[in-house]
């Protein structure tokens, strides 16, 4: 990162976490109306930490991530409130050219479908080397060398021979590794992985998650893992933020959530995981459908599907109640949910 920026962002001088999303609001203006994709999301990641952001499609998890990166299409998207602080500096207030410098160097992102996310007409080595050539002015030869090194680091066999191959010549898992190599090339401080394993086989999933964990340990970067798959989260994450209808409905340390969720939605998610000891019984699923972002329900967004619903759930939007230093739940009756779980 440039001198000016790093000075501005003196490590730790602001007293907060490395990356803080604070009460973020993002809307989409469409012909059919205004879709409220993100409604007051707050979470943070520090160096060496892994935050898992969990939610279904439409929960706002990807939109939040893209807003952090600054790659959201605006229009039709629009940030209508909140801050995103990276090393204490609000990214949303930075001019575009400064924000651009942070992308790839400070905060980096890995996408879900590597086949479409990689440029099909350039060799993979070239695409990785581009990071060095463009951000650091490295020479072609030197950048290529680094690209091979990175490909080795993410365990792509025969890296030196394959550096000139094209994306479509690799398998899905290999392509994802290439994307990861590209993302960590400049040693970013935060890596956002948006559903990195959703498009992959289960065995490959495990390998990729293992790779991410290892890379994180080596470089002490903060990792935001966006997923809808609870299974993936358990091994890797330190803390979880569960999103629904553009809001965080629960955040907790991983073991806290898995042991006893504090929100009916999280509870529903956990109960939906098929269990071997429930063989022969009907599979459980949360009834109903995710909310329509154009016409959000009044009050708590989950109330139409919630078994704990009371009258005030329909009228009062629940804030994120603090349960402890590490836990919060956006449910008026979180105590009931926890108590029931303990029985």
């Amino acid at each position: 990162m440039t001198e000016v920026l790093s000075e501005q962002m003196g490590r730790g001088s602001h007293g907060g976490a490395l990356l803080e999303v604070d009460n973020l609001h993002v809307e989409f203006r469409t012909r059919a109306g205004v879709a409220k994709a993100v409604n007051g999301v707050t979470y943070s990641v520090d160096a060496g930490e892994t935050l898992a952001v969990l939610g279904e499609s439409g929960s706002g998890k990807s939109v939040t991530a893209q807003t952090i990166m600054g790659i959201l299409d605006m229009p039709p998207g629009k940030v209508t409130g909140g801050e995103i602080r990276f090393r204490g500096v609000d990214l949303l207030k930075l001019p575009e050219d400064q924000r651009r410098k942070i992308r790839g160097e400070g905060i980096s992102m890995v996408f879900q479908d590597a086949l479409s996310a990689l440029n099909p007409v350039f060799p993979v080595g070239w695409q990785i080397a581009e990071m060095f050539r463009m951000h650091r002015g490295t020479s072609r030869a030197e950048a290529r060398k680094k690209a091979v090194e990175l490909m080795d680091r993410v365990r792509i066999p025969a890296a030196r021979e394959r550096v000139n191959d094209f994306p479509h010549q690799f398998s899905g898992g290999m392509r994802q590794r290439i994307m990861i190599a590209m993302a960590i090339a400049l040693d970013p401080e935060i890596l956002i992985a948006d559903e990195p394993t959703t498009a992959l086989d289960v065995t490959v999933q495990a390998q990729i998650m293992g790779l991410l964990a290892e890379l994180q340990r080596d470089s002490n970067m903060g990792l935001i893992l966006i997923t809808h798959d609870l299974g993936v989260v358990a091994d890797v994450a330190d803390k979880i933020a569960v999103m629904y209808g553009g809001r965080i409905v629960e955040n907790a340390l991983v073991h806290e959530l898995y042991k006893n969720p504090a929100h009916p939605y999280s509870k529903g998610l956990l109960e939906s995981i098929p269990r071997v000891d429930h063989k022969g019984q009907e599979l459980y699923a949360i009834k109903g459908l995710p909310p329509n972002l154009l016409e959000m329900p009044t009050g708590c967004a989950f109330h139409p599907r919630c078994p704990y619903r009371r009258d005030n759930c329909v009228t009062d939007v629940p804030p994120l109640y603090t349960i402890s230093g590490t836990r919060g739940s956006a449910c008026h009756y979180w105590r009931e949910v926890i108590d029931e779980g303990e029985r």
Partner: protein
Amino acid sequence: MSDPTATQDLIKGADDPAASPVAVRDSQRSLWRDTWDILKRRKIFWISLVLLILFLLMAAFPSLFTHKDPEYATLSKSMELPSAEAWFGYDLQGRDVWARTIYGARTSIIVGVLATLATVVLGGLTGVLAAYFGRWIDAVVSRVGEMFLGLPYVLGAIIILGTIAPAQSNPSKFTIMTVVIVVLALLGWPILMRIARSAVIQAKHQDYVQAARALGAGPMRIIFRHLLPNSLAPILVYATITIGSFIGAEATLSLLGIGLRSPVISWGIAIADHKDYLRTGPHAMFFPAGFLSLCVLTFVMLGEAVRDALDPKLR
């Protein structure tokens, strides 16, 4: 973990009408209804529709637009400029240009429409069959198509028309028109074959086709009931635009002298007859040329409007 009371509540919650969280979009609307909704909002669609109706009226009922006889020649009036009496002036033979332009619409449009129809039938059929039966039928049809595609249309027309029907003595109007229509269809079918083929190949892999097959439907039924209706859209768009380009093509062939000839009246012939008189009497050529261009524009605009409306990516 599954508490019976919680489960009961969940079921109750599902039945509760207030619990239906989403105004569930009616996703059952058909492609055509959606397309019509988009179409009717676009100016260009209505403009081209109005023009189309005008031209069709011109072709069907030329007497609505003029009382003059397009064949009636007064040599003394040759190449007279437009006046109150003759809005478009007179042509080389002293015939009323306005009348000839109006009457020319019929031939030009008929040739365009029939040639397109022949192309659609020939190309559509071969494309569907090639796509449905695949393998060697597909290989043969595709190669033959490539051979015809190997002839850029003017060159192809020159070769075909030049070798098959050189100046026959006094052929009838009907023969002349048929030859031109056949030639245009022969040169145009490969493209339509490709469109139909790719549309059918896509449709072939859809689940509903597999389902129909599993239920015992024979090839004919599958082709006509399932594949064709779903492949219709791109064919329709291309056909509309093709009518326009064939009308232009007919004019080009007439210009070269290998297309329609007298006694047929068409825009192309009017233009061809006067191409050497640009300096002295441009009116005799430009008015028919103007109508020709407007007519082609109409079909192209219409086809494009429909295509844009059908394109899901532009919604």
